[in-house]
């Protein structure tokens, strides 16, 4: 039954199989995750949950890794009306902790564990990490604008009331107004955490993730 539990795949292996490398044809990357037990330790998921997650993951991505294209593809199926590619890109950057252009199962499941099972602080940290595009520890206005645009793009054209072009900008302004306490034009992690923890709505919505899996 526990296919993965029994197999203790030792180390993470990343090996490339180049088929017909002369013609530059397919190169399949096979990636195997660490053993189930280690993943159980690293994340807050139970064995069964990890099994379910891996099965779904492996089915969709038989090669064991997700690349950005797939990410975008999957996300676009959930948001058919708008253009979710930018947001998917930012997500991918956030999931891809090792910055190697692909998201393995471990990256995937570790991030998921933080988002779904982590403490509020962890979640907020993760969200901050998502917004901080260049990972320099603070969110600038430009970064926030990009994020905001990407979110609004997912809505698409057909909204009610119809989308004004300035809507994202206004939203960015209000965000900064709320978050940027010292008005220095950037939002640091401390400001972010502080403001969020004081905000009832945000706290409330963080609990939404409790039952996703």
């Amino acid at each position, binding site marked *: 039954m526990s296919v993965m539990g029994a197999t203790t795949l030792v180390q993470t292996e990343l090996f490339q199989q180049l088929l017909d490398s002369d013609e530059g044809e397919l190169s399949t990357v096979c990636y195997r995750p660490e053993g189930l037990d280690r993943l159980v330790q690293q994340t807050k998921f139970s064995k069964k949950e990890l099994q379910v997650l891996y099965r779904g993951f492996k089915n969709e991505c038989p090669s064991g890794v997700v690349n950005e294209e797939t990410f975008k593809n999957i996300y676009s199926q959930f948001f058919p009306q708008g253009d979710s590619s930018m947001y998917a890109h930012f997500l991918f950057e956030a999931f891809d902790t090792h910055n190697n252009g692909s998201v393995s199962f471990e990256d995937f499941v570790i991030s998921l564990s933080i988002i779904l099972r982590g403490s509020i602080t962890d979640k907020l940290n993760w969200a901050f990490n998502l917004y901080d595009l260049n990972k320099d520890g603070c969110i600038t206005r430009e970064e926030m604008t990009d994020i905001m645009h990407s979110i609004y793009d997912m809505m698409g054209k057909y909204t009610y009331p119809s989308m004004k072009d300035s809507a994202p900008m206004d939203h960015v302004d209000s965000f900064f107004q709320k978050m940027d306490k010292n008005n220095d034009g950037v939002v640091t992690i401390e400001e972010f955490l502080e403001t969020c923890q004081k905000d009832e709505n945000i706290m*409330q919505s963080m609990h939404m*993730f409790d039952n996703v899996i």
Partner: protein
Amino acid sequence: MATGVAAWLPFARAAAIGWMPVANCPMPVAPRDNSKRQDELIILNVSGRRFQTWRTTLDRYPDTLLGSSEKDFFYNEETKEYFFDRDPDAFRSILNFYRTGKLHYPRHECISAYDEELTFFGIIPEIIGDCCYEEYKDRKRENLERLQDDQEENKDMKMPNMNFRETMWRAFENPHTSTMALVFYYVTGFFIAISVITNVVETVPCGSTANQKDMPCGERYTVAFFCMDTACVMIFTVEYLMRLFAAPSRYRFMRSVMSIIDVVAILPYYIGLVMTNNEDVSGAFVTLRVFRVFRIFKFSRHSQGLRILGYTLKSCASELGFLLFSLTMAIIIFATVMFYAEKGSSSSKFTSIPASFWYTIVTMTTLGYGDMVPKTIAGKIFGSICSLSGVLVIALPVPVIVSNFSRIYHQNQRADKRRAQKKARLARIRIAKSGSANAFLQSKRNGLLNELLELTGTEEDEQKLTKSTSLLESQHHHLLHCLEKTTAHEFVDEQMYEQNCLETALQTYPSRSPSISSHDSSVGTCCGRRVKRNTPLPNASTPSAHPIPTHQGPLQELSAIHIQCGDPPSHSTSRSNLNLKTDDSGRINCKGGRITTAIISLPTPPALTPDGDGLHGPPQRRPPPPPGHPAVPSIQTTTSSAGTNIVKVSAL
């Protein structure tokens, strides 16, 4: 939501964390999954072969049978599995669809069987993966064509109430439908042949008479040839006019190729008639005679192969066009080259480029007449290149045309074969169907026997005669029986029916045969009264008079079935009535209807078939009993003197 990505939904929901800090208003409440079902293994038992899969795998496609709650209908509580009574082999590809997200079409599978499986499991065929989609579509189209062909066969069936015009058209289109059509077909074919031969022979030089030069036969026996020509044209004209009259859509007929050929074939004659006086245009008149050769195309109505050839050429029009184009290009190129190569040579025949065309064509098609040959070395070199390339250029499009022809020809062969097989198939199917109808009649008789036996018989007799019928059969027969009762008619088989027809025909003669009189009255009577007659239908075989012992014991006759509507039967199936010799005239006084009695004489199982009589009256019933139930005895009509024997029973 798109199917197949249901597995990623948790991820998508998790990714919403990026919106939370940005949102200004509170989020709606998330739905709770109350079932909290762990992912479990589901067992799918398909005709004994067990497949197992995770529940979430099946849940990926919620609008199919397996993904929705529809599968609960197939759940077997005792074995805790889902049982499907379908083909396990086809199920494999369906289950793989859930697993991999791609539906494949197994090539060895019959297309309609596969389609049915897909429909059953609620999967639309359009999601077949690209790897298999083309194959699937091809086979489906092929199958559809085949079925369409079969349907078109039915159009050949003679429809009732066809007026004269339609009959004529049908006769023209399918000569095999009637003898007249066949005669017409052969006559026209003969005359076409005659006409063509005449045209040919006309030009042959017949021996000279006094003149020195040979005259072609046409000029020697002008009158004879003229008469022959006239006769043929007469026939063709008549034929054309008749077709025009019979055509359902005259305009379309006139535009069709065959009719144009017809017109072109006979027009020269008429034009010739009109123009004989004018000498100036006699030259043109002669040219017109060329068109007489088009009569040979009229043969394409008679030959299917010709039609196929014509159709092939039409469908290969693009290939032919390509062939022509490439040939023209090559001809021009080589002609130019040859011309310039041979320009130097003194007595060369290559006087101009168009003059070189002839050489090029003859060389490329490897004819090589030799009337024009290059003399210079350069010319010879280019000439040989020309002939080599000619072979290639011609050889390329030809296989395409050939394969097209082969495909169409085989399709036609298949169609013919199917047509031939169809008749045999239908006949066999009809026999099989008749089996079931006969089973009903059979069981009716047995039922009567059983009733009788219950009244009087011994156990062993009863068992001997009871034929065990399955529950299904007995329910079916009950249903038919109910119908009989409703309509106050009875089922009989074809033989009975025909005999009854015959008898009613005989009715007109005033013989006092009870049967006949029964017919008389039965006409127009609505309700059947039981006519109890002692009918001696002993051994069904011969109608020879078999003096019926009126009643040889209770078991011998039984009026079994009587349909009544309205008047309650004055007799019941009881022994006492068996001997009832009824006076026919009195009896048959019902309003309309049928007298129906089935008389069964015991000793001969299978019992007598109820004779059908009185086929007048509303015959409404169902599939006329099929021909020849082997056990059906022929009609027993024994007429003996003065009303002692009745013969039959009319069942409808």
